């Protein structure tokens, strides 16, 4: 299986992103750009309270406003319509609001100004109630309930594991450290805001244009909505425009999509809802804020003896897929480094904050922040160099972890060495300058968090040697299109430009569970490879008769189909395809393939082999801390990953660079400031993304362990860039000035306060 990079023609090449030219020319159409004839503009009215009863709603003035087609209060939404993982979230609320993000009415009008004006005319009488915003306080016995029908704010989700014997492990430890770490809500900040356009055709079949990461699951959700509306046996078509960034934000269906459908159905006209930036901040989700209590121990040689973690997650007012992130947190908790005795207990707690959701890393960054900060503390306690400490405990290939993860390839050791080299290079230690590191494990071969982890692909070849491949995979800028094209091109001896990747339309693309879990390269890649192999075989069979040689001797390269060593037996592939097509009983070459990786769903004890392979990495960072202001400056960054095989190093580096900078924002500057549940920094000025001037030098070396399960050996790399970033920075800050910041983000005021406390 494992080929050397020099043996590939297309794989491993820095081929520019296939849709980059149209994006560079300004021709790419995002949801913001799409207009259809007769389209109305929808807009949603949100709650003015974090927690309140809705006493009365009067829409009469809004209805009377010229240009308004319809006004939709909560009472007009069918009772059964509920969204989210827990189905606890109606798209428009009727009796009660539980967060500022709660939708209370919607309108459709002929232009955005009238829609906005109509919202202003809707009169709602509320009765404010006491809200609860701190998840730990929300767990207390007499805390106000976010949802009255529940007995407790703690969600009934069984997120706990216990492998080995933690108590025994602790007793046998020479060194034990414990602490509390917290992370805050950060948000995706996709440059293109969210939006959807819904339209019904004459026979009440529905088309939804939406920038979703889960076209197939969205289709399923929208079918549910139709069913509730009494529209049975209807079809739903989901079309994805070009997506202006995903990062996990579009892993569920949301109120704006369902409301657009409801409005479109009510007016029998196309309705588009697109968020403005404030709305994007206030009405989309955050990463789960967490409180983590961690205890780890090691023996006198530095070998980890146990890991004990208790975690509280701020679920917010409703339950989306974010509530399942503890399943991914289990991965580093059970399997980052070799540790036999592991206990983890997580509680997701309702609060009146905005509800949290998936975001790049899916829980892994929060868990890794606590683990890897605490590992440095343990190493210090044990008197062992933190790099050496990690080496002592590093994961190795071909080993099964306590959670039953079957680690096949593992380049963690190589990554540690590489980062060590980088961190130990350079001059003697300067005042205020320090280095830190942190490692990661992440799913690199899909993750079976749904009934199927599959992806379908349909491939057809035309008379000109070109390929159209219809894939279930989703591109949102990360490069699924290239990966698919390069894999198919490699297999069929074509160039990437010969491959047209169609991934935008559920009418023509097969099923896929969604663009999450760093799975597109691995799963969509394998699906494409499977289809390409089938077509290849068919071509070989045809050529076999033509060249009169056994099929397996026929090879593909440089757009030629040939028998090696026989110059007579060679033909351009397009010519061969035409021969196949335009002959008696002609045939055209097509194939379909559905790939579902060989990974497993969680059993009751949460053991399983979650992913078909695992990605490893180590990040190292050098920081300078200004001891007068507390400001942390990142001087250099290295992010080394075991990626199996880089299908496209150019795009891979882009994923790592972007992930790292997102991780640095998480570490240092980003935070959704919520004051009693209300977002106070809903703009790019007050929500501090790194600007170009704050950008950091990042090195992104890769190690290619050529995983047998991956397409041409590849593993996923979409998320790892932002997984161990924050603990690496926290460890570097400690190394620089001797203070450990345990609460993200590591702001200047926290560093300065810690320095003051340390210096007395």
């Amino acid at each position, binding site marked *: 299986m494992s080929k050397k990079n020099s043996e590939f023609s297309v794989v491993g090449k820095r081929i520019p992103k296939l849709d980059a030219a149209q994006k560079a020319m300004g021709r790419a159409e995002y949801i913001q750009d799409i207009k259809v004839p007769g389209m109305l503009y929808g807009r949603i009215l949100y709650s*003015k309270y974090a927690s309140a009863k809705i006493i009365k709603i009067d829409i009469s003035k809004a209805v009377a406003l010229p240009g308004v087609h319809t006004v939709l209060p909560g009472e007009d939404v069918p009772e059964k319509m509920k969204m989210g993982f827990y189905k606890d979230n109606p798209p428009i609320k009727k009796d009660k609001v539980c967060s500022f993000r709660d939708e209370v009415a919607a309108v459709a009008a002929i232009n955005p100004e009238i829609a906005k004006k109509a919202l202003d005319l809707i009169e709602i009488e509320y009765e404010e109630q006491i809200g609860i915003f701190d998840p730990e306080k929300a767990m207390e016995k007499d805390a106000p309930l976010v949802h009255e029908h529940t007995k407790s704010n703690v969600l009934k989700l069984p997120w706990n594991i216990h492998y080995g014997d933690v108590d025994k492990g602790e007793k046998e430890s020479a060194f034990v450290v414990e602490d509390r770490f917290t992370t805050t809500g950060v948000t995706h900040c996709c440059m293109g805001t969210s939006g959807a356009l819904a339209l019904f055709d004459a026979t009440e079949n529905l088309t939804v244009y939406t920038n979703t990461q889960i076209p197939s699951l969205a289709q399923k959700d929208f079918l549910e909505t139709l069913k509730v509306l009494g529209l049975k046996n209807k079809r739903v078509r989901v079309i994805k425009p070009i997506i202006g960034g995903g990062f996990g934000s579009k892993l569920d269906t949301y109120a704006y999509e369902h409301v657009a459908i409801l409005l479109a159905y009510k007016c029998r006209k196309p309705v588009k809802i697109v968020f403005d930036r*404030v709305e994007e901040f206030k009405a989309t989700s955050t990463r789960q804020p967490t409180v983590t209590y961690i205890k780890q121990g090691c023996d006198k040689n530095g070998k980890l003896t146990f890991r004990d973690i208790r975690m509280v997650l701020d679920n917010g007012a409703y339950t989306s897929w974010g509530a399942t992130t503890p399943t991914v947190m289990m991965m580093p908790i059970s399997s980052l480094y070799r540790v036999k005795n592991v206990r983890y207990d997580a509680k997701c707690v309702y609060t009146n904050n905005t509800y949290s959701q998936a975001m790049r890393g899916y829980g892994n960054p929060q868990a890794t922040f606590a683990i890897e900060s605490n590992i440095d503390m343990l190493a210090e306690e044990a008197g062992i160099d933190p790099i050496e400490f990690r080496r002592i405990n590093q994961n190795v290939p071909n080993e099964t972890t306590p959670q039953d993860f079957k680690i096949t390839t593992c380049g963690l050791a190589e990554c540690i060495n590489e980062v060590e080299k980088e961190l130990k290079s350079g001059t003697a230690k300067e005042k205020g300058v320090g280095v830190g590191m942190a490692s990661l494990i992440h799913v690199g071969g899909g993750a079976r968090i749904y009934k199927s982890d599959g992806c379908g692909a349909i491939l057809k070849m035309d008379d000109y040697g070109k390929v159209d491949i219809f894939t279930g995979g989703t591109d949102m800028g990360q490069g699924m299109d290239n990966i698919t094209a390069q894999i198919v091109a490699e297999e069929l001896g074509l160039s990437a430009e010969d491959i047209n990747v169609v991934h935008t339309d559920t009418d023509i693309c097969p099923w896929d569970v969604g663009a999450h879990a760093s799975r597109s390269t691995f799963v969509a890649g394998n699906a494409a490879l499977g289809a390409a192999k089938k077509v290849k075989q068919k071509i070989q069979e045809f050529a076999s008769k033509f060249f009169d040689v056994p099929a397996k001797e026929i090879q593909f390269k440089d757009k030629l189909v040939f028998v090696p060593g026989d110059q007579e037996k060679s033909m351009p592939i397009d010519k061969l395809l035409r021969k196949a097509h335009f002959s008696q009983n002609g045939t055209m070459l097509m194939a379909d393939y559905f790939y579902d990786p060989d990974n497993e769903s969680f059993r009751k004890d949460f053991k399983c082999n979650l992913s078909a392979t695992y990605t490893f990495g180590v990040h190292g960072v050098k920081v300078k801390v200004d001891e007068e*202001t507390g400001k942390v400056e990142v001087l250099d960054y290295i992010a080394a990953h075991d990626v199996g095989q880089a299908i496209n190093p150019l795009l891979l580096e882009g994923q790592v660079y972007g992930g790292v900078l997102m991780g640095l924002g998480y570490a240092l*500057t980003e935070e959704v400031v919520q004051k009693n549940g209300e977002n*106070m920094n*809903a703009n*790019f000025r007050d929500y501090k993304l790194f*600007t170009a001037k704050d950008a950091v030098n990042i090195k992104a070396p890769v190690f290619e362990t050529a995983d047998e399960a991956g397409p041409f050996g590849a593993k996923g790399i979409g998320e790892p860039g932002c997984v161990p970033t924050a603990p690496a920075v926290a460890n570097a800050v400690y190394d620089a000035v001797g203070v450990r910041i345990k609460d993200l983000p590591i702001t*200047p005021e926290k560093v300065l306060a810690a320095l003051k406390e340390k210096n007395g």
Partner: protein
Amino acid sequence: MRLPRFEYLEPSDLEGVLNLLATQGDDTKILAGGTDLLVRMKKGLLKPKTLISLKALNELSYINEEDGCIKIGARTPIADIIASDLIQKEAFALFEACEKIGAISIQHYRGTIGGNILQDNRCIHYNQSEFHRSGRQPCHKDGGKICYARDEADRCNSTCQSDGATALMALGASITLAKKGTERVVEIANFYTTDGIMPFAMESSELLTEIVISIQGGKSSYKRLAYRSAIDYPIVCAGVFLSASDTKKDEIEDARIVVGAMGRSPLFLVQESFSLKGKNLNDTEVFKKVADSSMNSASTFAVHNVGSTLEYRCVMVSEMVLQALKGAAQAVVAAKG
């Protein structure tokens, strides 16, 4: 995001602008670069009926040296100030301040120095969307009687985060306010009210036309703290001007310390400034004492309303003042040779 409707007027010269200002009421606003005004209009913080554009008034865009003064037209783009050798040489604090405003593509080309001085005060409770504000009682600046930043405050505590104004106050600059048939010159230090609702002591019929900095043979420095390197307002900043005695070259003759982003206006710290007279330019210990004293003086004005914690901002006053003092002192020493 769309703007509310308004009437747009574009007078061809200064006289035309002043004539219009004389006849229009309070709901008329001057449009220069628009980088502050149009944002406020989009957020519904302002709903002017009329905008008077300075587009045609190239006569207000200049940087000249005249009679021992630097004269800057109020409509001069920030970019021109950064590029000016004269400003870099004689008003370095202003150069440093302008460099840090917004980002090049946003503020430097469109934004003007006049607009920077007149940028409205900010407060995290006030600078919110219309919908956000509609969910609660209006604050002082929004036409109500409440302050969300300080309990029971009888007035608006919004914060002036203008980089340019802080530097200019340290440089002892004056501004010219023209109105039909007359004009007056005001020291920037005297230009502010004590209420964040309308922080500037100017009439609606007046136009800021010119900034004048007298060249006093000293050196200046401006330091600011912000979370990131662009698209950010300072959470605290300081401007310092120092000049040395002609006879004893290490002795401070004149000093001006101004702290910004801590109050309703930049704060000219008279006592601390005065206390530096006669002190040695290289005396870091004195600078530290003065910086700490500046912190104590400035802290009384600040409220928790522009991000970060109030405590941190207060502590950082001292650091910013110290850095600016050192910066200016070094420049003076270097200039003396």
